[in-house]
Structure formats: structure tokens, C-alpha cells
């Protein structure tokens, strides 16, 4: 148990909506627009929490439980999440499974809440979500396993603090492959381009946004915040894996980690500005490709 790990939990709770703001400002900047304020998501969530709610007559308690269970599961991952050299509150060899499984719970309930509306649009979104996440899961786990083998532990905290620059460069090809796989998973799981387009306005083409069409009021506020938190969680995994700044100074490590998160947000904005969404039929190829990268990384570290 590491009480300093709560610092990371607080950072995640406070700063995660900011990442979305950075992504949107980056996209606006590239497109030559002024864009929404950096803190827009905070305002949106606060406003939604002050509203009443409208529910479909079709829905049951599952629909109402969906957002809060999803948020609770995402919050539940935070005690296991290290930030750069800073260890998490709790850790053990294999704690990444808990993080992945809790994200799975969040997804399962979100999908069920979508199906609870009886809308074919939300059914579509749910169907795509389970398809792509089933393919993304091996890529994520095997990518992390490659790093775990290199460091000698499959605890996120050990992997993060043990991944020094020397170690990273010694196994650079494997680390880069794994990081690339994690980037694809990060984009896919957070419904970003090229897998999903958060800006789309056509229900037929959406994945994550269409699943939450019928949610409103405080429920939707909870969903927005939960999505931002999930972006932070998966982003942390990626930054920990690809930015091996581990010095003796906590301040430098923390600054490097935060800079990494901001850079990831900017990178996401740039990717979204530079390319269009893939056709739905081509997304599995991307995800299977990511799994292949993870497997290659493992072969390299097992060698």
C-alpha cells in the first residue's frame, strides 16, 4: 500500500476531463477554428448534473444502473494505476487483470443499458462495441505482457517504475511494437478516430455515442465523466509504457508523466485531424493487426 498513490487518483479525478478539452482544442487549431474552451467538459458535466431526467418507457432498472456501474468500475481501476515512477495505491503481480476486468464490467453494463432501450440504433452500437472490444482485449493484455516479461512482473506499478530508460532502450523494438499496439487499443477503446468518430452526427455510423443516445440529465453527466476517466486510465497505461523517464526525483517523474499525458492528447487530436474514420468492416483488421504487433513484441522479449 502506497499512500502517495492517492495523488495519482486525485490527478485522474481532477484532470481527466481536461484531456478531452486538449484533444478538441488541438483539432480546432489544426482546422483553423477557435474551438471550445479547454474546460468545456467540466461545464457540460456540471450542467447535466443539475438537470432532471427523461427515461424511455421501455427501459428498466438496468438502464438506470448502467452509467453509475460503469463509472464505479472505472473509478475502481484508479487504486491500481501508477503514474510514471509513482506507484499506485495497491499492487500485486497480475493487478493489470483487475484493471482490464473492471473496464470490462463498465463496458458490459453500458452495452446492456443500450440494449435496454429497444432501439435498433443502440443495438447497433452495442453490437459493434462488443465486437471491437473482444478483439482489442488480447492486444492490450499481450502488449502489457510483453512489457511484464521484460520487467519481470505483471504488476502495473512494477512495470511502470521498473521500466527505466536503460531497460526500455535495451528492448526498444519490442517496447515500440507494444506501445503501438497499446496506442491502437487506446484509440479503439475510447471511441476515437480511426475506429469511431466522437463528432459524428449520424446514428448509423456511431459506436460509443449511439449507445448512450437515450441517456440524459445526471446519467449523461456521469457517462461523460466516466468516458473521460477511461481515456485517462488507458492513456496512463500507454504513457507509462512509452515514456521511460524514471529518475530519483518524484517531481521530474510526475512532470514527465503529465507532459506525456498532454502530448498523448495532442497526438490524438492530430490523428483525428489527419485521418478519417475507417470503414466499420476494416476495423477488425486494425485490431487484429494490433494483436499481431503485441505477439511480435512478445516473441522479441522471449527470444
Amino acid at each position, binding site marked *: 500500500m502506497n499512500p502517495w498513490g492517492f495523488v495519482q487518483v486525485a490527478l485522474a479525478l481532477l484532470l481527466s476531463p481536461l484531456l478531452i478539452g486538449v484533444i478538441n482544442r488541438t483539432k480546432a487549431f489544426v482546422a483553423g477554428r477557435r474551438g471550445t474552451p479547454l474546460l468545456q467538459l467540466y461545464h457540460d458535466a456540471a450542467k447535466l448534473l443539475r438537470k432532471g431526467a427523461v427515461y424511455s418507457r421501455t427501459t428498466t432498472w438496468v438502464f438506470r444502473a448502467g452509467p453509475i456501474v460503469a463509472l464505479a468500475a472505472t473509478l475502481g481501476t484508479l487504486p491500481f494505476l501508477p503514474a510514471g515512477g509513482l506507484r499506485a495505491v495497491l499492487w500485486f503481480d497480475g493487478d493489470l487483470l483487475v484493471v482490464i476486468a473492471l473496464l470490462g*464490467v463498465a463496458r458490459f453494463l453500458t452495452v446492456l443499458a443500450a440494449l435496454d432501450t429497444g432501439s435498433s440504433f443502440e443495438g447497433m452500437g452495442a453490437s459493434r462495441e462488443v465486437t471491437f472490444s473482444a478483439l482489442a482485449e488480447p492486444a492490450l493484455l499481450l502488449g502489457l505482457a510483453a512489457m511484464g516479461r521484460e520487467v519481470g512482473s505483471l504488476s502495473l506499478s512494477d512495470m511502470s517504475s521498473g521500466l527505466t530508460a536503460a531497460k526500455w532502450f535495451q528492448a526498444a523494438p519490442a517496447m515500440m511494437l507494444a506501445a503501438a499496439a497499446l496506442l491502437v487499443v487506446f484509440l479503439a477503446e475510447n471511441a476515437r478516430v480511426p475506429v469511431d468518430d466522437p463528432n459524428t452526427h449520424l446514428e448509423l455510423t456511431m459506436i460509443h455515442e449511439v449507445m448512450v443516445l437515450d441517456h440524459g440529465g445526471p446519467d449523461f453527466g456521469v457517462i461523460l465523466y466516466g468516458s473521460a476517466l477511461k481515456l485517462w486510465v488507458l492513456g496512463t497505461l500507454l504513457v507509462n509504457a512509452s515514456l521511460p523517464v524514471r529518475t530519483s526525483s518524484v517531481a521530474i517523474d510526475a512532470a514527465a508523466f503529465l507532459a506525456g499525458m498532454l502530448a498523448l492528447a495532442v497526438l490524438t487530436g492530430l490523428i483525428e485531424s489527419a485521418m478519417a474514420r475507417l470503414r466499420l468492416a476494416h476495423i477488425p483488421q486494425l485490431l487484429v493487426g494490433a494483436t499481431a504487433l503485441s505477439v511480435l513484441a512478445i516473441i522479441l522479449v522471449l527470444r
Partner: protein
Amino acid sequence: MTLLLAAILLLILSGVAALVSEDASHPSASMGAFGAAAGCALGLTAALMVLIGGQTESLRLAWSVPRGAFLIELDPLSAFFLIPTLGLSGLAALYGSEYLQAGGVRRALGPSWFFFNLLVASMAVVLVARNAVLFLMAWEVMSVSSYFLVMHESEKESVREAGWTYLVAAHLGTAFLIVLFLLLGREFGTLDFGGPGRTIAAAPQVSGLLFILALIGFGTKAGFVPVHVWLPEAHPAAPSHVSAVMSGVMVKTGIYGLARILTFLGPPQGWWGWVLIGMGLSSGILGVLFALAQHDLKALLAYHTVENIGIIALGLGLGVLGLSAGLPGVAVLGFAGGLLHVLNHALFKGLLFLGAGAVAHGSGTREMDEMGGLLKRMPWTGATFLVGAVAISGLPPLNGFVSEFLIYLGAISGLHSPAATAVAGVGVMGGLALIGGLAAACFAKAFGIVFLGEPRSGHAEHAHEAGPLMRLSMALLAISCAAIGLLAPRVVRAMSPAIATIAGLTPGRCRDLLTPGTGSLALVVTASVVFLVLVLLLAVLRRALLAGRTVSETGTWDCGYARPTPRMQYSASSFAQPLTDLFGPVLRTERRGSPPRGYFPDDAAFATKTRDVWREELWRRVFAAAEWVLSKFAWLQQGRVHLYILYIALTLLALLIWGLP
């Protein structure tokens, strides 16, 4: 031991009582059901006492069968398997007492209860028998009584076909077991296998052959791909409480047999582990893929049994590999995960089959595409089915996650080991991740399409909730799923004598090796509790936020379409379509139908059917060839009894001559 014998006797006697009572009126049939429940409770007590006490009880009686005695023994491994077997069977009997009464067709229930109780008793005997002849006799009774249970609705042709396939498969499997036990008896010099730590001292080729025989013989009962083909047909055909027992625990006798044989074979060879892991991966992945393609709720659950047997095989495979590579830490985690998954799968699959029975009974159909919105009409069944669905998808905080987590832990410690074991670890991790993702997809479909949304047909619209006993059984199973999830470290410690038996370690050493694993499990439970507390807090917060605000109801957002109907909802087939298309080359789904034509299309139809590839492509050909060969010998079969007696006499004579010194 006396307690267990009393339980078995009670099961058989109440079964006979149910059979001989003339009419199928309520009291006589319920004698079978409550006799079964009481017998299971008695036997469960005996098994729990042995597992917790850790000492082995045995009973040896002389009998006229040569080369051995009537020997039964209750050791921790038997006790561990008895717990789910008797626990689930007892609850299924309670459920069945109401379920069968409510069945649409009036038929005599005496035989059904007779065979049910016989099935439970024979499973118990299989688990404690330590004599080859006794074991095979119980095994045969188990196969035949479950065959008669499958044939409950024998007026349907599909049921007769399923029963026939099952009978053939069961006996082909038994043939391998007979050879196995004869060879094993030759190595041991006796047909008794009792006593702790008995192993054969045979050449590696012989023990390898024995392993393969056990894998095929017991694997047929367990449902490993490709010898699983009977399972997805027989399990759905039976009445639901029987499906629960068959899928939840009867297939586990195959796992038990494999585990027990492993303890006889001495130090395992590395390739056994690889074969088991390969079996596990193919059963797990193909099982869940075929499950995704089903739209009959019970067929979907039956294919998930194949998947879960695959997960258990992954655990056993890691265990065997760990033992052979001299990594006992990997071995105990693999065996612990595999064994715990045996218990967990019994609980959640039992629960899901009972739920499916309640749905089929309440709505009158098993076709998922005709269901929808059942959560409002069957709130209890729906809530417990959701618990089962979360558990089987391997998600926290329920029991399915715990056992898969242990197997993952085994794979992780394999990953930290030298390269060969590490490769196995990676394979298990990747396979489990894919299986887990696909299972979650499949149960999002099963629960979402059946219980959520709007009713897709009149069947679903007029569905009604199950009766009190049925609800009680399902609720108890759901509570057990949650309890094992939240008490995981204690459960694993309690079952460590059973793990020690199969790993060939002393109980103390096994407990020491498990300590890191239980430590991790304690943190997993912490995470689960934190998660549940957060859910509670957020629920309170949400209630507080919405208090005093306008909360109104309206229709679902329909994108401005004026006349939405429930038929526009996503169906089971459409939900799974991206995945079934992706794996189309494996699944070979047949599509039939006529697309809409013209400006005012009047009729259009579409239907898919996914047959079992192994049955169609492999076994159908094998059996066609066998039929062709065997038809050449048809002249031997005259249908006259005296000729058959002559054959027997001639055979005996030939054997006598052959045996002359």
C-alpha cells in the same frame, strides 16, 4: 462415509418410490424430488466434512467380481467434486419438482424422477469408486439414466436424434475407458485403485498411451472439441433442470476422471500439458464462437459449456506443464484455477440453465428472436440470470472472474519462467483474453435480447414469472456465485487439500505455494468491495440529485421515425453478426431467405442456421464410412437369440483354447 452411503441409498430408494407409485399425481412425484434434495443435502454434509477435515475415509467390501473388492473412498479430490455435484443436483431437484408439474404435456413423472435420482446417485458413486469395475458400472448407469432423461420429450424427432447421438458418443467414450482401465489394472496388478499416492511405474510410452486414452474417453464426457458433438444437442433437449445437472456437473465427471488418472500416472510429461492447453484453446474459442451463432437460448448455453470446459482444460494443462517443468508454483495455480472453475461453472451454468428453463416455460419458446422485455415480466428470473451472465463472462465481483484470474496468475508465473513455459503462459493469457471478450459479447446478447427491450412476439408479451421453488433455487445459486466471488481466498484455502491431491504435493506445501495467489485474491476482493461500495455511493448520489426534479417518461429516441415497432429492434442474430461474419470461415453459417423486391415488397424472409462443423464435416463422414464397413457384416446379425448364444459360446471356447498353457 456412512453419511454418504445413506445419501446414495436415499437417492435410489426415493427414485424407486417415485417409479412404483402408480399415478403421476403430485405427492408421489414430489417424493422423488424431495428425496433427491434430502439425499443431496446429506451427501453434501459428508463431502464438506471430508474436505474441511482433510482426512480420507474408505470402505472395502468383498464381492464376487475378480481381481478386486468393492472399494469406495472419499478423499479431498472426490469430496471437492461431490460438492458441486450434490449441491447443484439438490437445487435442480427442487426446481424440477415445480418445473415438471407445470409442463404443458401431461405425462407420468415417476420415470423421470427415477432416472434423475439414479443419475445423481451414479455420479456420486463415480466420484468415490476406487475399483475399475465399480467405476465403469456407475459410469454406464450415469450415461444410460441421463440418456432416458434427455428422451423426456421423445415425441419430438429432434429430441430422439439428440438422444441417439448422445448414446453413441457416450458408449464410444466408454470403450476407450475400458481399455484404459484394463491397461491400468495390468500395471497395478489389481483393479483396485484406492490408497493415497499410488502411481504406476511404467515406461513413458505406456503412461503416454494411458493419458491419451483417458483424454479421449473422459474428454468425450467432458465435451472437448472435437468429441463434443453430442453435447450441444443433448443438453438443450433435456428438461431444463436436467440440462443444468448435465451441463453443470455431469460433464465434470469427465474432468474428475482425467484428474484422477493423472494422479495414477506419476510425473507427467511436458507434452501432456501442451495437449491439454491446445485442447483448452480450441474448445474455449470454438465453443464461444458457436455459442455466439446460436439463437436457441439453451443451445447457446450448451456451447458455453464446451467453452468453459476449455477454460478448465487450460488450468489443468498449465498445472501439468508446471509439474513437468519443475515449477510447482505454476502448477498449483493452474490446478487451483481449473478446479475452482469446475465449482464455479457448476454454479453459474446451473443458474443459467434454470433461468433459461424459467424463460422457456414462462414464454413458451426458446427462440431468442421471439423474446425481449422479459425483465419486466419475470423480474426474479431476469435478475438472477444477469448474475449468471456476469459470472460466466468472467467479470468481477463474481466467481467466474476469480477462477479465471487464478489461471491467469498461473500463466503469469509461467511467463516469468524459462521460454518454453513462458510461451504456454502467453498462449493461455491471449486465449483467455479472447474467450473472455467473446463470452462477454455472447452474454450481452443473451441477456440483452431476452430480457431487455420490447417483446418481439406474443410469446414474450404474455410471459409470466416462475413459481416460488424455481425462484428459490435460482436465488440460492446466484447468492453462491456472489459468495465465492467475495470469499475467494477462503474458498481457495479450503480446497487446497484437493489441489494437493491432484498435484501430488503434501497439503502443507500446497498451501504454502498457494499463499501468494490467495494474497493476490485478497486484493482482488478488496477491489471488488471498493467497486460495490462505489456503486452504492453513486446510486445514493443519483437518487439525491434527482430528488425533487422532473423525471418523466417517453418513448425511445427513434430518429424521427413515425411508427417504430418492436420488430425493428436488433435481434440476437443481428447483434452477433459482426463477430459471426468475422469468423465466418470457421462457423459456416447457412443463410436462407428472400430479400424484399420491388417498390412495395409484400414478403421477405431471412433465416440463419449454424450447424456444428465437426459433426457435419468430420463425424458424419467417419460414421458413413463405418456404416459402409459394418454393413458387410450384417449377415452375422440374424435376429435369432439362439444364434447369438452360439456366438458367445464360440467366443468363450476360442478364448479358452487361446488361454491353454
